[in-house]
């Protein structure tokens, strides 16, 4: 599936491509392979689906998207895949995952994220989404983010660097990125 060089390549590019005329050549030099090899490998990793997306990772908060809600729902197991697929097609949603319920303490099995310019907008989008996707029968909770204690892109290399210390940032002035749609989307897990 992937070889040792692929792995090194992912480690080399995960912090970002240089903003320079020949960025892939710069990466190639680090790995002692050719520029063409870098490009072909990245294209293959993308085709294989290991790289879900190759491109600009925006910081939504800095772009005015200051309200970030994680919404959790309790959807009957036999419907969760259908509902999940439906929800993830809505324009306002950037992530949609199924996760295991935790008994009565946390009965939710479907998670989605909505990033919006304000709480009001996000709640409005959620109300529309509930209506449009027929979710009114399912119990849910909306969890807006408050402080961000730590945020960085996923580091997959085995040698992980020590992360930044916690510099709490209050929601509304912080730096978050959305990583999958985590383009703007990244909650891995």
């Amino acid at each position: 599936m992937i070889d040792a060089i692929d792995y090194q390549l992912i480690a080399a590019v995960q912090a970002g491509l240089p903003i320079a005329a020949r960025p892939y050549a710069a990466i190639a030099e680090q790995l002692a392979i050719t520029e063409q090899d870098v490009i072909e490998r990245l294209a293959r990793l993308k085709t294989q689906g290991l790289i879900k997306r190759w491109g600009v990772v925006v910081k939504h908060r800095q772009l005015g998207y200051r309200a970030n809600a994680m919404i959790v729902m309790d959807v009957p197991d036999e419907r969760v895949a259908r509902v999940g697929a439906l929800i993830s097609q809505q324009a306002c949603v950037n992530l949609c995952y199924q996760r295991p319920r935790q008994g009565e303490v946390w009965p939710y099995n479907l998670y989605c994220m909505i990033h919006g310019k304000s709480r009001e907008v996000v709640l409005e989008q959620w109300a529309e989404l509930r209506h449009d996707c027929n979710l009114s029968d399912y119990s849910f909770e909306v969890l807006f983010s408050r402080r961000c204690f730590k945020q960085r892109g996923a580091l997959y290399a085995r040698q992980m660097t020590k992360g930044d210390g916690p510099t709490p940032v209050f929601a509304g002035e912080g730096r978050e990125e959305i990583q999958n749609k985590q383009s703007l989307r990244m909650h891995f897990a």
Partner: protein
Amino acid sequence: MLAPLHKRLLNDYQQDFPLSPTPYRDIAEQLGVSEDEVLNAFQTLSEQQMISRIGPVIAPNSIGNSALVAMAVPEFDLARVAELVSAYPEVNHNYERENRFNLWFVLIADSETHLKAVIADIETQTGYPAMLLPMLADYFINLGFELNLHD
């Protein structure tokens, strides 16, 4: 205030940034501007923290293991616990959320064993139980965050 060029770069290259020897020149040709303008614009977006990087988003759990973890921490102790959690290199996001489960973080480790060991250690260090919420299915298909950049 973002220039039209910046908006195009933010919205149009989240998924298919060119995989070619001269990607910035290719973008410049697509947009009818010079390569230097594109390089300068990306530099500005990067300096202004509007983009975090140009690079990969890796499919969850394709390399290593990751999981979302939640903890319910009394308000008076939240800062201490959050700091302890953030100090782990395996933790890559750590947020306070408005809920009785008020601390939510994502862990990435190179194996499930490693992941579980870190969680056990976090529970010991902080004195609170952690709720492990691994991903069972990812329903998200369309990628890219459509930015509404109307001023």
